[in-house]
């Protein structure tokens, strides 16, 4: 159903849109600026002044694997917004330009166009990660070998933690992206997609953060919310699997609220079910609904 020709058509649209290039460049550019500024400061500040933290900052940010951790942190912080805008404009612009009517009659499987967008979006997310690595790893190497900024050894940091953390972050992005896709298809508007994506993400994070307080008053509600909220599952995955917190009752916030250890496999399964259900709903709506023009 999804073919190489459809993927190539979508990729051509994706790479030629200026907003996509800007979205792909924001986080790598920000990382590059931070690292370069920190390196310049560390190199240009007189030796006696370095004790107040500048060199320590440089040592904790620039060399590998600290640069990797910083990149994943920054991606987790700003990535969801990039994903929301990317997905909403990619799908919403087809409604805005009224271009669906030109391409949909050309292929017998309408759902393929939406699934192709989802796959190209996922590929673009991986391209973003690759671009980030392509920026921070060489800069880290320059800082470490050329500028002699050695890694801070007072904090132990395994690269695998950053990689696992990145995997969970990407899973949560796929969830947010798929939600935005659904919202954009339902509303047939890029703006509505962006607003819905931001609102949903903010509300879910807010409720997730309030879960301990809710648990104090109404533990049953908090328990139910913890099971329902996808953010709780991603958070548990982050704590328990990526950062290696103990699975016991006192180990992770989710375990504390539901009162029992939650297996990471279950977190992963629930996250994937959410993504699959939203993608299925998007495809069903897109396939069945009239395209009556703007």
């Amino acid at each position, binding site marked *: 159903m999804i*073919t190489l*020709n*459809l993927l*190539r*058509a979508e990729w*051509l*649209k994706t790479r*030629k*849109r*200026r907003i996509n290039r800007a979205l792909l460049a924001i986080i790598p550019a920000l990382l590059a600026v931070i690292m370069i500024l920190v390196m310049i400061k560390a190199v240009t500040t007189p030796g006696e002044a370095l004790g107040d933290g500048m060199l320590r900052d440089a040592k904790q940010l620039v060399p590998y694997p600290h640069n990797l951790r910083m990149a994943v942190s920054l991606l987790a912080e700003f990535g969801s917004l990039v994903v929301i805008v990317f997905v909403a404009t990619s799908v919403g612009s087809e409604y805005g*330009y*009224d*271009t669906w*009517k*030109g*391409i*949909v*009659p*050309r*292929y*017998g*499987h*309408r759902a393929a*166009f939406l699934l192709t967008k989802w796959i190209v979006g996922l590929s673009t997310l991986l391209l973003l990660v690759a671009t980030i690595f392509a920026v921070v790893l060489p800069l880290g190497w320059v800082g470490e070998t050329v500028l002699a900024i050695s890694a801070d050894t007072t904090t132990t940091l395994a690269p695998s933690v950053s990689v696992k953390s990145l995997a969970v972050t990407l899973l949560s992005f796929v969830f947010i992206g798929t939600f935005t896709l659904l919202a954009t298809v339902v509303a047939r508007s890029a703006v509505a997609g962006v607003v819905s994506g931001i609102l949903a993400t903010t509300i879910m994070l807010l409720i997730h953060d309030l879960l301990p307080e809710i648990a104090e008053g109404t533990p049953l509600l908090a328990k139910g919310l913890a099971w329902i909220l996808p953010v709780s599952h991603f958070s548990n995955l982050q704590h328990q699997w990526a950062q290696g917190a103990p699975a016991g009752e006192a180990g992770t916030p989710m375990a504390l609220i539901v009162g029992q250890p939650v297996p990471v496999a279950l977190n992963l399964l629930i996250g994937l079910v959410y993504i699959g259900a939203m993608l299925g709903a998007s495809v069903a709506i897109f396939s*069945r609904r*009239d*395209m*009556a*023009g703007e």
Partner: protein
Amino acid sequence: MSEGYAIQARGLTKRYKHVVAVNTLDLDIPRGTVYGFLGPNGAGKTTTIRMLLGLIRPTSGRAAVLGHDSRTGRHAIAPKVGAIVESPTFYPYLTGAQNLEVLWRSSNMPVDRRRIEMLLARVGLAERGKHTVKTYSLGMKQRLGIAATLLTDPEIIFLDEPTNGLDPAGTVEVRTLIGQLGRDGHTIFLSSHLLNEVEQVCTDVAIVQKGELKLQGTVRDLLAQSSHILIKAAPHERALSLLRADPALQARPGEDGTIAVTAAMDEVPSLISALVSADIAVYDVREHRSTLEQLFLDRTAQPHERPHGPHVEVME
């Protein structure tokens, strides 16, 4: 539904809440025809095209394109159909050639860049193919839209007001192109409000109003049936009586003291002979050819707006 037809529809209906956009439409469009689909604004022309292309679902009724059901046979229909719906829309940040590439790949067919260049040249955009579409005029977008419909050499081409925004020279070019495509064996479904254009290029025509089919047939037959002979003779009453006495003829008073007779031109000599034999002086005989515009106005006008001119006989 028969495979001999490019498009067939039976009872095709689209209802939006309380508005009936298309009402029990029946269409029979033979393969290889250039089919004009006429109607005033809001008649349901674009809604019909959208239903035939699978963009919207009929509320009731069904349609077949090339013998395949328009709802369930999309995979068989899609590769054989090219279309402009309402107005051509493109990705403004892509060049004309890139837009054609995207559309071609969306048909799941490998792209032939030489054909893209050839099509751009055919619609007069050879020089602008590498410019982004946001710099195009409406006429240029219309030309690019026509090129887009031809990408995969489809059997049926839907053109919805294809000359909108074109200058007179461009209009003539597109009209010539449509005629050429028809002669090449393509079935053209041309929705237009330009009656002169339809009369010039279409072999068949349908007139719709308020979602209902008012008229359908070949242009030649429709115009022939609504054309008549105007005879000026004296004494008028006797001439009218004599002509009315022939059951094969339909005679009635025309304008300016003439008699309007529905008859073929080859019947005229015997008519004149009969009148002269009856001592009736014949002063003038001329053919009054109806135009599609007269047909259209007569069929789409409200009863109180109907002109008091000659009655128009049409083939239903």
